């Protein structure tokens, strides 16, 4: 019953806003939690009645939704990160009316993201990318701080450029294929594999997706948007929005639609490698907590794209696994930054220090998150990076493997410096009143940390049952 993923949030929004809303508006939080946690449970426990049962609602509409292993991984990530973002939002947004709007917008972006991983048509992909994008614009700007408005506007402009590029490409592909569904476009690309026009169109579409995913050199909007957005929105943006709009679309299109193509793969590898290096180098010099995490995101996404460009089965497994891990540990890092920001009132790391003694849970989960990001065993991040490096080595790309390993060390460096500056050391006088963040932030942090540790520790056991099938979507 795949259509439920897209239709249930609609139902929730309608119920929240119709005349019964005096009663239901207080339930907004619970709707969000049930939907996102429910989504995660459906993927983990795989009840047959859900996945193989007939699509009752879907009979009325011709929705043409499809699911495969990649979509399942994405649905799981979407569910988990949205769950965390909703809980953080409940804790950090003070005004009740703003919280209600936040919840509705999160439900709308949930529709967008779920739709995006289930569809099979190029123009529908564009539409759902826009759904997620527009709800993100509003979410970034909704507390109306001047910095947030500027971050939102930058994102609007760059997102609009990406839109134009994608639509230009759609018009050329429409000429070549006559239809916009994935299968027709794939057939047309295969037929006209020597056509310069079609290759130009593919290149332009990929550029548009690079902008959406925040890859160098199109990453201009990302640090501004991530660092100026409100805390819960940063969790959502960094954890899942960029991954779904940009990276999932790239994975899906470059493997199934635009065909495994050697020049496309070469471009992906170069873009990935450049993103890894520039993201890591830029993160080292930052003094703002969230901005450093934003550059770190750019760097980690580079790993995913590097593995995608490599193209072998093992590399794809590494890419998807790293995507899942990244959404978990990056959201965890941002949840912790929300905790720190709420308790200290600032995100400037130079003004912090010694918070570890006052915020034990945040300290511990932040430690787990950054060790996972840097790829330290036995946490989950180590395994996915190991798979990527092995796949690169097996594919003969020795230089890229070397870059990946070297940058891991730089990653460890700047994250360790972050942990030291924020949590270790002596508590300064101005911060004496700091206490641990509320339950609403600590709980999702613990859940996310538990997932990272759990996946990491159980990796040898789940390797064949869960990890290898992640790459099984390659046709």
């Amino acid at each position, binding site marked *: 019953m795949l259509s439920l993923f897209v239709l249930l949030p609609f139902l929730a929004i309608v119920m929240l806003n119709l005349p019964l809303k005096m009663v239901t508006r207080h339930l907004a939080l619970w709707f969000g939690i049930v939907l996102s946690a429910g989504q995660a449970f459906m993927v983990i426990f795989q009840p047959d009645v859900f996945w193989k049962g007939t699509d009752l609602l879907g009979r009325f509409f011709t929705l043409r939704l499809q699911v495969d292993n990649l979509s399942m991984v994405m649905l799981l990530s979407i569910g988990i990160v949205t769950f965390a973002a909703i809980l953080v939002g409940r804790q950090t947004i003070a005004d009740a009316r703003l919280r209600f709007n936040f919840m509705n917008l999160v439900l709308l972006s949930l529709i967008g993201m779920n739709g995006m991983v289930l569809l099979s048509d190029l*123009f529908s992909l564009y*539409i759902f990318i*826009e759904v997620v994008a*527009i709800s993100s*614009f*509003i979410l970034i*700007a909704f507390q*109306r701080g*001047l*910095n947030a*408005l*500027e*971050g*939102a*506007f*930058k994102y*609007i*402009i760059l997102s*609009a*450029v990406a*839109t*134009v590029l994608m*639509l*230009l490409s*759609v*018009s*050329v592909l*429409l*000429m070549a294929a*006559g*239809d*916009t569904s994935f299968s027709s476009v794939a057939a047309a690309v295969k037929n006209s594999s020597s056509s310069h026009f079609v290759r130009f169109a593919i290149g332009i579409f990929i550029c548009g997706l690079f902008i959406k995913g925040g890859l160098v050199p199109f990453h*201009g*909007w990302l*640090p*501004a948007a991530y660092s*100026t957005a409100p805390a819960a929105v940063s969790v959502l943006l960094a954890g899942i929005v960029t991954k779904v709009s940009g990276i999932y679309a790239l994975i899906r299109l470059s493997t199934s639609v635009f065909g495994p193509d050697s020049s496309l793969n070469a471009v992906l590898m170069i873009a990935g490698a450049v993103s890894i290096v520039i993201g890591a180098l830029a993160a080292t010099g930052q003094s703002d907590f969230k901005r450093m995490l934003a550059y770190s995101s750019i760097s980690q996404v580079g790993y995913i794209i590097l593995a995608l460009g490599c193209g072998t089965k093992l590399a794809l497994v590494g890419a998807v696994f790293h995507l899942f891990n990244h959404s978990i540990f990056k959201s965890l890092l941002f949840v912790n930054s929300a905790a720190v920001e709420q308790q200290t009132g600032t995100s400037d790391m130079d003004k912090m220090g010694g918070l570890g003694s006052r915020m034990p849970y945040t300290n511990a989960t932040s430690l787990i998150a950054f060790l996972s990001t840097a790829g330290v065993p036995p946490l989950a991040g180590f395994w996915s990076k190991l798979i990527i490096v092995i796949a690169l080595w097996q594919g003969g790309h020795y230089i890229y493997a070397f870059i990946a390993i070297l940058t891991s060390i730089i990653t460890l460096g700047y994250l360790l410096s972050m942990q030291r500056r924020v949590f270790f050391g002596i508590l300064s006088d101005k911060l004496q009143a700091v206490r641990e963040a509320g339950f609403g932030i600590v709980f999702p942090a613990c859940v996310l940390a538990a997932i990272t540790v759990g996946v990491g520790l159980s990796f040898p056991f789940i390797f064949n049952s869960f990890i290898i099938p992640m790459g099984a979507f390659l046709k």
Partner: protein
Amino acid sequence: MTNDMAVVLWLFGVAAALVLIVGFYCLIATINLIRAIIGLEILIKAVTLFIILAGYVTGRTGLAQALVITLIVIEVVVVVVAMGVVLCVFSHNKSVDVRMIRNVKG
């Protein structure tokens, strides 16, 4: 493709490409937030013409029109949200100068 249609493709294609250039330039080189959105609008018009042209050339006018109608709906909502952001910026510092934005480090 018939010769007539090839000429049409060329004519309309060149014009749409020109408008695309104008739109991109406007988006890059303006200091006023509202004019940046106008530039975005011009870009979308050029892309609309491209899609309709693609539909005409392949005979799929139905699909092209459906796509364009959807595109127009999306574009209106984007413009409304962008105007909302602009108005909030204006209520903060009484100006819609984009130099305010260049202050936020990229």
